[in-house]
């Protein structure tokens, strides 16, 4: 038996290798570096993210495949990897002061972020259920730990424990589903599964269907689809705010990438059936997320429910499928990253020592107290609500346009209605910021300046506006990225 590894094999996973290697370097640097300088660790982390991003961009269009077909670096995975890298880079910029003030084990924090990013990238680039599972586990394990890093905060502990227990439970479902699918098709390679399912006797095998169902449950939990969303508000509220910003955009996008890989590459013969299941999930996810978000007084919790609703919108695009629908997923994932991380960025910046400003009351008159941040928050809220000239609008437009083109009229109507409902709670914060006078309890003076934080918020705002006004560039990339996926199925 001949077996050899070539340079191509390693080139395929070069970005992941860079991140894993640098994750260890960051740990060692924290140990041996002089005076535990947190700023240096953040710069080192950013540098490795940039290096990985550069490696990704150079590999674009080559569609490399490595390690006997377990991983690939096709345009789909590269597009998603660039999204993950943006999430993590923004999170690192947002974290510099927060991590320092709260003394959350500096080196560990940044290296866990890097490992989590590597896990997400593996999820997007695997063609093999085993690799998807390992990538997901690296990501999940890092996330559980990141949630609990405020060790003296009881709610942070609760968040980590809740996430861990429920996450392990959902992982059980996912693994069981993969096992059943393996039992029915005899392979763990996604493309071979699709091949096997084209045979009549495998296709009618109920074991394979049970497997599909359980995989959907497992990913439903990771993406926080209703009815598997119960953990989301508590985990997001209790976790350190920087981690919440990361969790609500990164891992969600990664789970969508892996889900699309499994559904479109592996389970394409079952498309008619899984898209019906997802249709229902998309409707209840959008509706419940928006309706419950209406009632929240805590902005962090409101954003948690809003992230559930946005997962519902993305799911609409998955249901629609085809190049247009899947392209809309890629587009929306990036737009959501910018607006969501930006909104959390403002919350992080206003968090003063020991006290976080998280209720609507705290933001009374904020637009006049700190005009620049007020405008930034205004932009993010408009984008989340899907008002034109923002990335959120361009993304929703892509999703609903593809849905109408494919004849999903009802899904579009329900999605639009939900969008209208969501305007209420997003604009509520704008009303509070600009139309109510600052009270005794609200923020009185602009938050202390911090260059990395302002940079992150400015970058996110610029991203939102760029995607809103010139969406065609990223639309082109996202359409191209899914062209291989849809050509085969």
């Amino acid at each position, binding site marked *: *038996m001949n*077996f050899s*590894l070539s340079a191509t094999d390693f080139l395929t*996973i070069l970005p992941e290798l860079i991140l*894993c290697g640098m*994750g*260890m370097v960051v*740990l060692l640097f924290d140990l041996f570096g002089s005076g535990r300088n947190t700023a240096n660790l953040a710069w080192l982390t950013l540098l490795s993210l940039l290096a990985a991003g550069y490696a990704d961009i150079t590999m674009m269009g080559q569609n490399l495949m*490595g*390690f*006997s077909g*377990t*991983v690939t670096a096709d345009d789909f995975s590269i597009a998603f990897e660039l999204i993950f890298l943006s999430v993590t880079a923004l999170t690192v910029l947002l974290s510099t002061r927060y991590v320092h*003030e*709260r*003394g*959350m*084990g500096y080196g*560990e924090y940044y*290296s*866990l972020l890097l*490992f989590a990013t*590597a*896990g997400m990238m*593996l999820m997007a680039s695997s063609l*093999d259920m*085993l*690799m998807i599972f*390992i*990538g997901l*586990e*690296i990501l999940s*394990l*890092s996330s*559980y*730990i990141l949630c*609990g*890093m405020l*060790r*003296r*905060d009881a709610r942070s502990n609760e968040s*980590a424990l809740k996430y861990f227990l429920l996450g392990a439970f959902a992982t059980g479902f996912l693994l069981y589903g993969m096992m059943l699918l*393996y*039992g*029915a*098709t*005899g392979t763990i390679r996604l493309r071979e599964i699709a091949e*096997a399912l084209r045979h009549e*006797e*495998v296709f*009618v*095998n*109920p*074991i*394979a*269907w*049970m497997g599909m169902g359980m995989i959907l449950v497992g990913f439903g939990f990771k993406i926080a689809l209703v009815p598997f969303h119960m953990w989301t508000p508590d985990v997001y509220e209790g976790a350190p705010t920087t981690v919440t910003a990361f969790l609500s955009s990164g891992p969600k996008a990664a789970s969508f990438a892996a889900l699309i890989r499994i559904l479109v590459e592996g389970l394409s013969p079952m498309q008619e059936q899984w898209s019906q299941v997802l249709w229902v999930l998309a409707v209840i996810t959008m509706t419940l997320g928006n309706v419950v978000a209406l009632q929240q007084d805590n902005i962090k919790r409101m954003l948690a429910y809003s992230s559930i609703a946005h997962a519902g919108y993305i799911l609409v695009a998955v249901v629609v499928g085809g190049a247009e629908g899947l392209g809309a997923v890629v587009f929306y994932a990036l737009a959501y990253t910018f607006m969501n991380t930006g909104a959390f960025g403002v919350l992080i910046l206003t968090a003063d*020592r*020991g*006290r976080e400003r998280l209720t609507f009351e705290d933001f009374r008159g904020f637009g006049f107290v700190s005009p620049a941040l007020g405008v930034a928050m205004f932009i993010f809220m408009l984008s989340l609500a899907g008002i034109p000239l923002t990335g959120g609008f361009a993304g929703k437009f892509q999703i609903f346009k593809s849905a109408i083109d494919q004849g999903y009229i009802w899904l579009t109507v329900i999605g639009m209605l939900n969008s209208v409902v969501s305007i209420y709670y997003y604009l509520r914060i704008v009303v509070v910021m600009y139309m109510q006078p600052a009270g005794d309890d609200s923020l009185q003076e602009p938050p202390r300046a911090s260059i990395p934080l302002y940079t992150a918020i400015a970058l996110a705002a610029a991203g939102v506006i760029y995607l809103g006004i010139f969406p065609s560039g990223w639309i082109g990339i996202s359409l191209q990225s899914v062209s291989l996926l849809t050509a085969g199925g």
Partner: protein
Amino acid sequence: MEVFFYLFAVLATVGAVSVLLIRSPVYCALALVGTFFCLAAIYVLLSSEFVAAVQLLVYAGAIMVLFLFVIMLLNLKSDQPFALKFSIPKIIGLAVTVGILAQLIGVLNSPAAKVGPSGEYTIERVSAEGATEVVGRLLFTEYVLPFEIISILLLVAVIGAVVLAKRYVASGEEESG
């Protein structure tokens, strides 16, 4: 052979359920050891002796010793031997579990259900070449990437254990609120 499978499967399930129901940590640990042993026996029945041996060494051996150490160091005490309090969430959970179980049994018994096409490594081939050799060769050729990448997973777990469980070093280093 099938008799043995059912014997060990039932024992494994009984062990797993008792881990949930028994309150005394030491008894829980013992029930868990029983489950691990039964699983190892099932692996042997499936003619994968290597996995069975690893199961015994790693789970029943190393991990259980660690569990018992932790239990011993924490010096846990428990008043009630059994925890059989029923609440509405538990009843709903039980109903869902029974539902999924019934569905699984239905699926596995339906006439269309059968084991899918077998791959390259049939039982005959594995027993001819030796299970350990086949597993070892695959791990270092076709599945070398998953095998190596798991080390990152373990590293993350180690970091997590240190971060979440280490002692507070200095008061100034931790958050005040």
